[in-house]
């Protein structure tokens, strides 16, 4: 029992030690890709192709004064960024990377992911409240309304997957896609999930909680130094998390159709699929404008929710009829 426990702890440590630098590198990847798509260079000075830019940024951010405003609520102010990063990192525990790698085969893995996603809201909301400043408070309130709304049909959109595979266990969901990825029958569910995922990680075009043009920096207006870096890290980690979940739920995880699966190891396929979605997230940021806040909520409740419900209903009917 003991060696097993130590092995698990080692696995967790390696995963965290890999995830955090990857998330930091993602910041550079994003800036570089945006640069290319906008016909300019982007950061290309530090190291080969500028790949060490994130390291330089990290050193800079560590050297800055970590200021806690005297008018803030100290407890909550310090706690908020930690909650965000911890919740996202916890979610990675249930993701099956390959047939052998994966921290936990929790039999409610999907529910665990949804629970952690819904707890991550507190990070943003509490940050907005604890800062005790108007911009931050507005950002926090926007985040609360947005996340609670989009969470509803994020849960509904994956229920089609649960219906078809009959399990909440993410590893079993992947294995159930051996004969064909679920995207074939769950395209609508996937679209709703992806949109909700973008809103949950509050990336553009759904970054209204931190809309720079209206709210300075939204919920993290008062944050600086390491605590700001934690928010940043949480955002990029959740981009990777949503990408990984899309791959696991709809694109067969590490599985590939028969001629392709021998070309590369499963882990590489999994990472390639995740990278595809990460690049999609980045491309979205460069190409879409930001909606107004009431448009965002109306879109959620009046368009996405009915679509998610309809998808669930049709999937259930087809399942009962024996078509799927």
């Amino acid at each position: 029992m003991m060696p097993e426990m130590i092995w698990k702890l080692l696995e967790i440590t390696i995963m965290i030690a890999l995830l955090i630098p990857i998330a930091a590198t993602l910041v550079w990847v994003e800036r570089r890709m945006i640069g290319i798509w906008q016909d300019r260079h982007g950061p290309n000075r530090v190291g080969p192709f500028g790949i060490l830019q994130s390291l330089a940024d990290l050193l800079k951010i560590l050297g800055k004064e970590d200021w806690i405003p005297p008018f803030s609520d100290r407890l909550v102010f310090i706690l908020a960024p930690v909650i965000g990063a911890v919740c996202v990192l916890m979610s990675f525990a249930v993701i099956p990377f390959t047939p052998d790698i994966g921290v936990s085969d929790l039999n409610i893995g999907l529910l665990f992911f949804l629970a952690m996603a819904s707890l991550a809201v507190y990070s943003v909301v509490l940050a907005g409240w604890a800062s005790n400043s108007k911009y931050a408070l507005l950002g926090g309130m926007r985040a609360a309304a947005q996340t609670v709304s989009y969470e509803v049909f994020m849960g509904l959109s994956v229920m089609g997957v649960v219906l078809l595979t009959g399990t909440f266990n993410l590893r079993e969901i992947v294995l159930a896609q051996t004969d064909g990825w679920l995207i074939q029958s769950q395209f609508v569910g996937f679209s709703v999930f992806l949109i909700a995922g973008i809103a949950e990680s509050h990336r553009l075009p759904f970054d209204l909680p931190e809309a720079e043009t209206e709210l300075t920096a939204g919920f993290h207006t008062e944050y600086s130094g390491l605590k700001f870096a934690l928010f940043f890290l949480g955002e990029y980690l959740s981009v990777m998390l949503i990408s990984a979940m899309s791959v696991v739920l709809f694109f067969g995880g590490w599985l590939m159709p028969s001629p392709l699966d021998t070309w590369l190891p499963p882990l590489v396929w999994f990472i390639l699929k995740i990278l595809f979605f990460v690049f999609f997230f980045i491309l979205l940021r460069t190409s879409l404008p930001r909606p107004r806040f009431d448009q965002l909520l109306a879109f959620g409740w009046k368009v996405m929710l009915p679509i998610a419900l309809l998808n669930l209903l049709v999937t259930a009917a087809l399942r009962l009829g024996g078509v799927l």
Partner: protein
Amino acid sequence: MSSLASIEGLFYLAATIAIVASLKVVTGKNTVHALLYLVISLLAVAVCFYLMGAPFAAGLEVIVYAGAILVLFVFAVMMFGLGIDETHNAPQSRGLSLWVGPVFLGLLLLIELIFVIGNSDLSLQLNNQIVDSKQVGMLLYGPYLLAVEISSFLLLAGLVAGYHYAKPESRGGRL
């Protein structure tokens, strides 16, 4: 036998955390801090459910109560500016004693959860007596059907009332 006993120990630990946090909810002076304690209390109850072999109930407890309903509470508190005045008056020197409590309780829960999930021996013990989502569904739509229907009526009434209040009064209002 020893691992079963340790499950019991973990259960009582989580239950104690829930009770302490609930007491702090009703005795606290700062609204938002009280809400934070309430979140921790609900998370502790979820861990209790998980340890009793009901992971589905535990997941829903976190998603519905801690993740959605309490966020709405916090939203309302923020919107009406409750709790901010007390924060202004609170001297900063007392800050330390304020934040030790919830952080300590939350950390205990986190350690417990990681311990249970990471320890395959304990997980095996749990799997022996598990109540899965299928059984929950069969119970809800079997013996407890009437209760489910009645609560859905209640929710529908709430929805209609909410729609009534939210309806714009004049046609020229919001688009």
